[in-house]
């Protein structure tokens, strides 16, 4: 615990050092090297505490009569590991990537405090410290989002981000305030000891609002696709991979730890939101051609998957089915870890592409697999993992979620009876769309022929970036091959939170995983991997040995009409067109118009497409409109005459006197 707090202090100091030495050539190395080391320490501390008894500490800071309380229990430890992994990876990556930064003085001072905020949220053990860290995390990441402030889009993104972050902070504040009661028992220990709040449902909804808006749950996701691309790529990775997970942590902490057993309908709400988020997030992602924005929307999708798991856990818990809740929560947390890994990797890849070509727009890329083979390989791993392909890790967590969905068809409540299978369909749809989305993302960016000179002249990125990407890729593979390790590591956490755990996995033959019982379902990642590897190798060997191995290079065949210009390739837009026609016409009111030149005109035909963001139109635009209207109406009050202002005083006085006269 002391070590961890020292880590946080060191990170804050590192931020100060970053401010002081930002322009110095070794400033980048010092800051990122330092944060790498500290993240490793934090991750290790988390790892050591995974199975250990909770450890607490108090500092005489924060709310004076409570102090800043900290506690590492299994839940906090797990998320510490996630933070350590994501933060460490981002720092390592930034050792190389950060050297291209044009405004280091706007990035270096805020990166370590951002990490400190992430760590503090996870270990905070009273409402004040928790929210303090929560807002610190928001503020530091906001500063990073607006680092490249000359671009008006970035500052707009920052504004929307901080506004929604503030909403989330206030919602959590309300939730925790309700839990703490009028006497202000803000320590989590006191909240746990207190009898369950009679307004538990309200607290839960507020927690959902607060944590959900930070995590990017539809319809509160609006900031995410704006802010994540705006930040420097290693920060995007951290925001997408880790910060949204910390929001998930907040939800779990409040709902599963501080609040008593939830009502079953709250499970329905969470399941519905999770399912909608998963599908809508992916559909949004499919409509993007900005690489980082696409990744950000894919984060929304994954948050949806995680919340499906959480909703299942709540539904099971509400029905007193602890073992099922353990399975669902394990699936959710496994996906938390997985997403942190592959989303970091993918954002690193996007950053590598950005620094190699200066482009984020996939329509201006292409053919990078030739110029950046290692990056391409790492990104391909990430794409396969996020598309839930076996034997990588994304598949395992989604598989576990499916197992949880299949677990109990006999829950008594009708809401759950309808919602759970629907979520199954939504999850399956989201997974299939994810595969399409990442085929598109990887294919357009890395495959084919370069669409611009920048893409044609790109070069491989530096060692640190590659190390970070390949490291994350390796972790994705390992987590996919040996999921039993992760599940067993999570077991003490489940035991502490739910009073039940999944069956022990590590003792099983062949290191398979069996979520419930052998006859029901089992999966063995490494064996499948070995099968695939062996089959591939054998085939190649056999064919090369017994058949032909001759290769001749020739121009592409292309059905006999090869066109050397890269414009004839499929673009991101055209790739998405079938899906846009199938889903987008309803969801996004997608509309296509082909403008044909008049006969005789040799100009090209043009296609114009339009999309509407349904959620923005239905939720954010009206709110903005309403506030603008109200502000306009109120603004009249700035330009009244003194007489009118006196009139207000007069009316107030007479009204109060009248009230008194009537009241007496």
């Amino acid at each position: 615990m002391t070590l961890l707090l020292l880590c946080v202090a060191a990170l804050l100091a590192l931020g100060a050092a970053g401010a002081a030495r930002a322009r110095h050539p070794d400033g980048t190395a010092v800051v990122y090297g330092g944060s790498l080391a500290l993240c490793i320490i934090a991750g290790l501390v988390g790892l050591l505490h995974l199975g250990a008894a909770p450890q607490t500490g108090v500092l005489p800071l924060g709310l004076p009569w409570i102090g800043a309380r900290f506690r590492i229990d299994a839940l906090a430890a797990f998320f510490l590991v996630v933070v350590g992994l994501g933060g460490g990876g981002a720092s390592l990556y930034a050792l190389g990537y950060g050297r291209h930064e044009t405004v280091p003085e706007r990035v270096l001072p805020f990166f370590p405090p951002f990490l400190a905020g992430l760590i503090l949220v996870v270990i905070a053990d009273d409402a004040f410290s928790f929210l303090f860290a929560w807002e610190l995390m928001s503020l530091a990441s906001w500063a990073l989002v607006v680092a490249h402030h000359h671009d008006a889009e970035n500052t707009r993104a920052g504004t929307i981000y901080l506004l929604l972050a503030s909403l989330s902070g206030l919602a959590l504040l309300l939730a925790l305030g309700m839990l703490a009661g009028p006497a202000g028992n803000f320590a989590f220990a006191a909240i746990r000891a207190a009898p369950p709040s009679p307004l538990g449902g309200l607290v839960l909804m507020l927690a959902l609002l607060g944590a959900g808006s930070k995590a990017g749950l539809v319809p509160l996701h609006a900031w995410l696709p704006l802010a994540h691309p705006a930040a420097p790529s290693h920060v995007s990775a951290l925001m997408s991979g880790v910060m949204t997970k910390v929001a998930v942590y907040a939800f779990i902490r409040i709902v599963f730890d501080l609040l008593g057993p939830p009502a079953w309908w709250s499970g329905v709400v969470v399941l519905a939101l999770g399912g909608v988020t998963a599908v809508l997030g992916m559909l949004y992602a499919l409509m993007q051609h900005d690489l980082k924005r696409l990744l950000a929307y894919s984060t929304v999708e994954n948050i949806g998957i995680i919340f499906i798991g959480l909703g299942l856990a709540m539904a099971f818990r509400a029905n007193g089915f602890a073992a099922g809740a353990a399975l669902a929560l394990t699936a959710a947390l496994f996906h938390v870890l997985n997403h942190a890994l592959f989303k970091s990797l993918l954002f690193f890849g996007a950053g590598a592409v950005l620094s190699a070509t200066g482009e984020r727009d996939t329509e201006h890329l292409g053919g990078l697999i030739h110029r950046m083979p290692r990056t391409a390989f790492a990104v391909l791993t990430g794409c396969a993992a996020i598309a839930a392909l076996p034997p990588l890790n994304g598949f395992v967590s989604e598989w576990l979620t499916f197992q949880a969905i299949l677990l109990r068809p006999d829950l008594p409540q009708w809401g759950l009876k309808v919602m759970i299978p629907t979520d199954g369909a939504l999850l399956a749809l989201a997974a299939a769309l994810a595969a399409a989305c990442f085929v598109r993302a990887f294919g357009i960016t890395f495959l084919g022929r370069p669409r611009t000179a920048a893409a044609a002249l790109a070069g491989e990125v530096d060692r640190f970036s590659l190390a970070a990407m390949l490291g994350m890729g390796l972790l994705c593979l390992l987590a996919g091959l040996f999921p039993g390790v992760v599940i067993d590591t999570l077991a003490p956490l489940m035991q502490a939170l739910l009073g039940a755990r999944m069956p022990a996995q590590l003792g099983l033959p062949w290191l398979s995983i069996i979520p419930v019982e052998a006859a029901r379902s089992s999966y063995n990642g490494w064996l499948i991997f070995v099968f695939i590897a062996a089959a591939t190798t054998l085939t190649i060997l056999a064919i090369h040995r017994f058949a032909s191995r001759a290769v001749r290079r020739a121009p592409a065949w292309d059905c006999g009409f090869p066109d050397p210009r890269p414009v004839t390739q499929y673009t991101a837009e055209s790739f998405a067109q079938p899906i846009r026609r199938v889903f987008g016409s309803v969801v996004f009111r997608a509309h296509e118009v082909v403008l044909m030149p008049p006969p005789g005109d040799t100009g090209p035909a043009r296609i114009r497409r339009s999309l509407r963001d349904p959620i923005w139109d239905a939720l954010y635009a009206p709110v903005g409109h309403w506030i603008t209207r109200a502000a306009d109406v109120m603004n009249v009050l700035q330009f009244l005459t003194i007489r009118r202002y006196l009139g207000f005083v007069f009316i107030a006085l007479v009204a109060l006197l009248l009230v008194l006269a009537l009241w007496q």
Partner: protein
Amino acid sequence: MNPLFGVLGAPLIGAAVLAAIPGYRMSARLNVAASLIAFLASLLLLRERPPSGDLLLVDDLNIVFIVLSTFIGFTTSVFSASYIGHELETGRLTPAYLRFYHAMFQVMMLGMNLALVSNNIGLMWVAVELATLSTVMMVGIYRTHEAIEAAWKYFILGSVGIALALFGTILVYLAAQPVVGAGLAGMAWTGLVAHAAQFDPALLNIAFVFLLLGYGTKVGLAPMHAWLPDAHAEGPTPISAVLSGLLLNVALYALLRFKMLMAACPGAIAPGPLMMGLGLLSLLFAALMLYRRRDIKRMFAYSSIEHMGIIVFAFGIAGPLGNFAGLLQMTMHSLTKSAIFFSVGHVAQVKGTQRIADMGGLTETHPLLGWGLVAGVAAIAGLPPFGVFMSEFLVVSSTFAREPVLALLLVLGLLIAFGALLLRLTSVAFGAPRGPRTGVHASYVPMFAHLALVLIAGIYLPAPLVAWFQHVAALLG
């Protein structure tokens, strides 16, 4: 020697001397010196507290205000020294006006300090009036049409407010007179609070209505707020800082005293709901008004209204948490808002305008001012690691557990206000630089001193301070 002589004498003598001295450098230094003496004297008050007399009183409640007031007076005088020189260079002010300005600065400090230490509600009223008159002068000092209009508006509304407050004061005396007896004792806080239980509650109720509206005008509560934005916007920036940082507090202090009186009288209406209502109204109103502001100082003036709303709301909610939060919020707001005005003042001087549209990219052209402003706005918006976060945390959480609906309104107001501040901050501090990029001879010390204090308070409140605040909070009921 009685430290009160320092607190009151330094500005009094300072005013007299400054009125006589030409030459702005000298007088700016003297101004700083006088403010420093007052501040040091107020620190001495912490160590030894003079016995309360018929007219003057130092107790646990007002000492908070005195120290805060003299401290901000001191830092503002330091800021003013560098600010005012620039005004002279650009010709906005002449040496004669500067002489007047410095003298008035001390008169204003005298008025506020006197209002804070007076034991007599009549004397306090006179002192508040003195402070009002001197600030009216300062607001109109640039003699532009806008400044004169602002000063006039301030003057009229302030006068009406203060007249209502006087009527309320007379009614309080009237309620006290049968119990305490005629004479000075009937107007002394010490006597009033001690015997409040036997006062006629109905009379006190009416008195409180007048006092709330009267002093509420000076606090800047909606709908009596109209003078405040213009007065902040058109006067010299040090005065804006003092107005927001001090004068509003002085009026608030008066309100708090009367609230204690009400609380001590069992039959009287609870002042809480009234204060909560006015506080919420001010918060929501100011939050919406923030959006259409084009003048940066006027915008922060509205933010002061917003915060005064929160503070009055917190004191209205009362209870140990509410009062503690109110005190803390008030202290933090004073420090932060004056720091913001310190920054804004220099910014406006550099850019030659107060129009938000003509500023941009400050963090790039003037990093210290720009980041100072960012930190200030973050602090005022209640973001950690700054002190306002703690007070808003306490206000919102303690309200929600008791009055969920009110808390939701409070949160709504906070969010709306935050949105506006953030929008404007973004356009001022970030983006491509707009307007002149010339350097500035700024004194950063006051601004960063305030921000540092706010930062420290946000992370660590020293135990004695906490105990003291808690004690005061308990006094407030």
